[in-house]
């Protein structure tokens, strides 16, 4: 048996049994963050906080929500919204956070792309992050089914139909996913399970992985400078905090993180209390009706760009383009052939590529919301072709980049 001595205090008591000193050194006080960063580096913490809000509000909602096709709609719109004290608060926190979490994820992603934070040992950070994006997408979709309104039902119908994979006509697979010919009781129950248990578990595991992939390569910095973390840490620990290019995660960096989080929370609660409507589609306040399609079916704003990729084509080509759009971001570390891991503004053609991609995705998002008619169809088609072309040219333009 290990040797234990009489503890000098509570901290020592835990330290002897759990090595808490080592854990806090590795995870916080001696986990080094470059100083040369900006507020965009705080998005990870903003995401953590938003996820905690989703979890907390979700737990309360779960106590009154009823996953039954007869009662689900009323349990949300009557019981939670009208009867449960502060039920409206949890629902609006949950709905707003679910929408905002995607905005922050997109900012987080595009920050990573801009600063080349997916290269030179940081590939797994990017890949685990993209897996998180997929898991959050599934979580958002499954959650969207639960109020069992018209948009829930028809989004469920359209998205599960994608699994028939066009001309492969895998109707059996679609019926298997639904547990019925159409979205019905079995469907609602299993998506409830996915939303409150399986997918959150997957997300939590992926978050742990995402953090773990970050620990050894450390976070990138504004110049893409390769830091000797051990050397800089030595300086910091010897008292030369000013001369060192790094700071400790806790409490130095954390205090800066929390400043950004605080500003974010002001915006977040402003939305929750005064402007939650953007996260509550009016069509979903009609109960699900399998015999009536809403005049215009569209996903939440964060899926619009990939929805638009699907739209301008015939089913098969649309599905191929959609599949391409879903996986291509994961491949980014391998498609970027440049030897440089530096910010886009130092990379010539890549800088143009970055801004064109961002603009194109904003156009795709706008077109996804508009009815697929006339000029919008054309703009949509051009934007989709541009999106695909951008990813095809990426290896070539980055290959031509000179080593700096």
């Amino acid at each position, binding site marked *: 048996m290990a040797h234990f001595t009489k503890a000098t205090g509570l901290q020592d008591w835990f330290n002897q049994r759990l090595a808490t000193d080592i854990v806090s050194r590795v995870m916080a006080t001696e986990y080094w963050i470059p100083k040369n960063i900006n507020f965009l580096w705080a998005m990870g913490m903003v995401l953590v906080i938003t996820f905690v809000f989703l979890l907390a509000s979700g737990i309360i909602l779960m106590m009154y929500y009823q996953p039954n096709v007869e009662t689900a709609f009323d349990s949300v719109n009557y019981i939670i919204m009208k009867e449960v004290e502060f039920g409206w608060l949890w629902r609006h926190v949950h709905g707003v956070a679910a929408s905002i979490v995607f905005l922050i994820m997109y900012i987080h992603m595009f920050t990573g792309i801009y600063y080349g934070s997916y290269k030179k040992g940081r590939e797994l950070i990017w890949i685990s992050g993209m897996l998180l994006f997929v898991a959050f997408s599934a979580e958002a979709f499954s959650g969207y089914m639960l109020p069992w309104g018209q948009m829930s039902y*028809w989004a469920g*119908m*359209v998205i599960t*139909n*994608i699994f028939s994979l*066009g*001309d492969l*006509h895998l*109707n059996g697979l679609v*019926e*298997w*996913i*639904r*547990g*019925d*010919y*159409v979205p*019905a009781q*079995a469907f609602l129950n*299993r998506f409830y399970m996915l939303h409150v248990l399986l997918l959150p578990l997957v997300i939590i595991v992926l978050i742990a992985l995402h953090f773990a992939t970050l620990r050894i390569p450390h976070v990138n910095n504004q110049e893409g400078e390769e830091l000797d973390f051990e050397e800089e840490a030595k300086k910091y620990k010897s008292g030369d905090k000013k001369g060192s290019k790094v700071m400790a995660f806790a409490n130095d960096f954390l205090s800066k993180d929390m400043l950004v989080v605080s500003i974010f929370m002001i915006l977040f609660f402003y939305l929750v209390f005064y402007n939650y409507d953007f996260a509550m589609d009016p069509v979903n306040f009609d109960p699900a009706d*399998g*015999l*009536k*399609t*809403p*005049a*215009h*079916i569209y996903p939440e704003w964060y899926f619009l760009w990939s929805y638009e990729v699907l*739209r*301008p*084509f*015939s*089913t*098969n080509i*649309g599905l191929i383009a959609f599949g391409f759009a879903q996986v291509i971001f994961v491949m980014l570390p391998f498609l970027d052939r440049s030897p440089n891991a530096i910010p886009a503004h130092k990379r010539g053609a890549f800088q143009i590529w970055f801004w064109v991609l961002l603009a194109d995705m904003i156009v795709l998002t706008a077109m996804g919301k508009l*009815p*697929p*008619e006339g000029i919008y*169809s054309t703009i949509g088609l051009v934007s989709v072709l541009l999106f695909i072309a951008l990813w095809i040219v990426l290896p070539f333009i980055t290959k031509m980049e000179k080593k700096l």
Partner: protein
Amino acid sequence: MTKTNRRAFMGKAFSAVAGVGAIASLYAMKKSWDPLPSVKAAGFTTLDMSEYKGNELVTEKWRGKPVFILKYTPEMMASLNDDQKTRVIQIGSDYFMVTLGLCTHLGCIPGYNPDEKSFLCACHGGTFNVAGEVTKAPPPRDLDIPPFKINGTTLVLGEEGDEYKKLLEDGKTLRV
């Protein structure tokens, strides 16, 4: 047998048994997700076809899905070509379009315009004519025809009659 060999053997034996168990439980999980027998058994709808009026679209429900019943007026019948007529269902002296009311693209319900005699799917802009044929992409194929059996003046959806089997053989519809 040396000690290491024994341990390697135990490791392999354990993995093999656990592997079989894992595959078996995956099979059980797959089957647990299947549609229930009660869901499958509720898959028949009987319609009295003498009730419908010409050029008036009625949406019936079969397996939770909408089914379009459109009785053709004599003028509408006259506007159809021979190929289109193969999809027409005759009951007594009446002629009908009977199709699933789901767009073959991604399953939205198209709306019917009785003046233009055409269907428009609002989701992605696909259109169909009164024969159920696609007239504008993205829908990849004509509206599907559900399995049906003609019983005098009634139509049973969910049962495969001779007329339906012929349509299936001729490739006029997919099995849905």
